[in-house]
């Protein structure tokens, strides 16, 4: 009756993918936000602004990372989880590098 391929458990590989791949991806998102989001690092920030913005960036990494880990178990297999998270973070860091070179 099932008209879908059920997801595999793959606990260990998915958990590691969420922890490692998820960390890479979340910090690539934080990198983009820190450099090109509001109060970005290229704009002239006052000492106080930098002090609080850096704290905010650090805080933001935790919910993003934990949400990625939480939803990593939705990937069909562990290998797929690794592939998606790593390629997404590669794209993230790529965009970050290009934008930092351009701007």
């Amino acid at each position, binding site marked *: 009756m099932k008209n879908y391929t059920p997801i595999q458990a793959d606990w260990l590989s998915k958990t590691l993918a969420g922890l490692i791949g998820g960390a890479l991806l979340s910090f690539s998102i934080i990198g983009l936000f820190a450099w090109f989001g509001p109060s970005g690092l290229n704009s002239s920030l006052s000492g106080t602004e*930098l002090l609080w913005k850096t704290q905010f960036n650090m805080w933001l*990494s935790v919910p993003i990372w934990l949400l990625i880990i939480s939803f990593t178990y939705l990937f069909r297999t562990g290998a797929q989880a690794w592939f998606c998270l790593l390629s997404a973070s590669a794209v993230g860091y790529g965009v970050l590098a290009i934008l930092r070179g351009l701007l």
Partner: protein
Amino acid sequence: MKVRADILKTYQSLHTWTGITSSLLLFIGFFAGALTMFAPEIDRWATPSKHQMANIDTERYDALLDTVLASHPKASDNVILHFNDALSPVSWYEQGSPRGLRLDDIRWHATLDENDQLVAEQVPVNRLSELLDMLHRTAGIGGEIGHTQSGVFVLGIAAGLYFLALVSGVIFLLPTLVKRFMAVRDQGERKRFWLDGHNLLGIASLPFHIVIALTVCVFAFHDLLYGTLAQVYGDKPLFPRNPPSKIERNIADLPKVSEMVALAQSHAPGYQVAQIKLSNLNKPSAFATIDVVNEGEVARGALHDFMFINPYTLEVVSSSVAHPEQTVWARLVSSFFGLHFGSYGGDLMRWVYFMMGLAGACLFYSGNILWLEKRRQKGMQQRRAYRIMGALTVGVCLGALTGIAATFASSKWLTLLPVNINQAYMFVYYASFSCVMISAFVYGPAKTAINTLKVLALLCVLIPVTSVLAGLVPAVNLWFPNSLGTLMVEVIALAFAVVFWWLSGHVKRRAMANEPGSIWHLETPDTITSNLSVKHS
């Protein structure tokens, strides 16, 4: 809402395993955390009222500070001016410092008499609330990694698991969410009551739990996260670098206390100055922290907002006070802290956080009970994991409660003994915890729970009884609560006593049903039944 069966199954397993591995640590963290909402009241309750000295008028603080700094050179390293009626007007550390849990700190308290003469006394610092805070942050796990207690990292990991448990719990509850929510069935299968209660507690306080899980992860791992963030920042500094000052400082140049208070009032209108902490006054690194309170705003700290100033130039170096120039990032970050500490909305919010903390502890306990009930097999023969988890659940939960209750119950009596009171607290806590833990494994969860809950009730009753005794027999040299806050500590203790006594009876009735294989099964129920019949006859 429909969710695919394989997803439900995956997230149900995830919920089970993340829950069972973190629940007992979180139980201790939440219960102790709920109590730390009233840390100032608890410390005032535990400190003999004679340890606090008479208040003086605000304009006499200048004279007081000058006298202290002139007669006690050590005070220039770390001296605190208190603007709170319940505390001595000034205090400084002879040994130790205000931060962190050290057991042998000695502090001076002082005030001025009518003739502007200094009255000073050295007292050991009673750190009852910091014992609770240590349990809150580490679940009582000792040892240090770097400068942080290793328990902090353990609880950080537990908080991560707890976040996964929250997400997975919501996902596998989604299909039946509306139907299950608000329906606590106590009929039918016993498991159902626990299941419905667990769901109700979890869903009703979900935002609070999400906040706590995320903030605890940040508190535990911020150093690692800043390290990683530095990689992303590249050559940009994380924080503004201020080269250390080289200007020599002389206490004679120190501005007046009234000028510092005025600075605080102009920087933070609407706030009250709670205390001013002056540090390293003789050194180029001199700085001052002004703690300010405004119950209408979200505070960055557990009790206060902070202003860091240079005490000589009166320049505000950094501040967490809500004011028009404050950036949105400062507001957001302060609110993350405030949401964890419940330091907004004054006493009402402190009571709400107290109740939520207790409800959280119940959520984790009920989760463990569900895990056990689900794994129970028919008949007497049970798996090893079931027996160990049953004993652990009762041992850890009741052990921590007994440890805390015993510390409170013995607190005032310990001041009569020639011992370091903070070391005595640690001994009482860990000894009580170990006794309950050992009993849970040796005598089984049922017997341990029935007896420990009774002991707990007695310990809690002992707290107000001690005060009544102090009032009736002045010769014992103890003291009676002298404010509403400290009196409430005893009222709450009494309420806990009633709950624990009732629970003991409840567990006893449960054990009488004597279901084979249940963790509440008693091997020899006769002793208990005969006790019961004696009581009823």
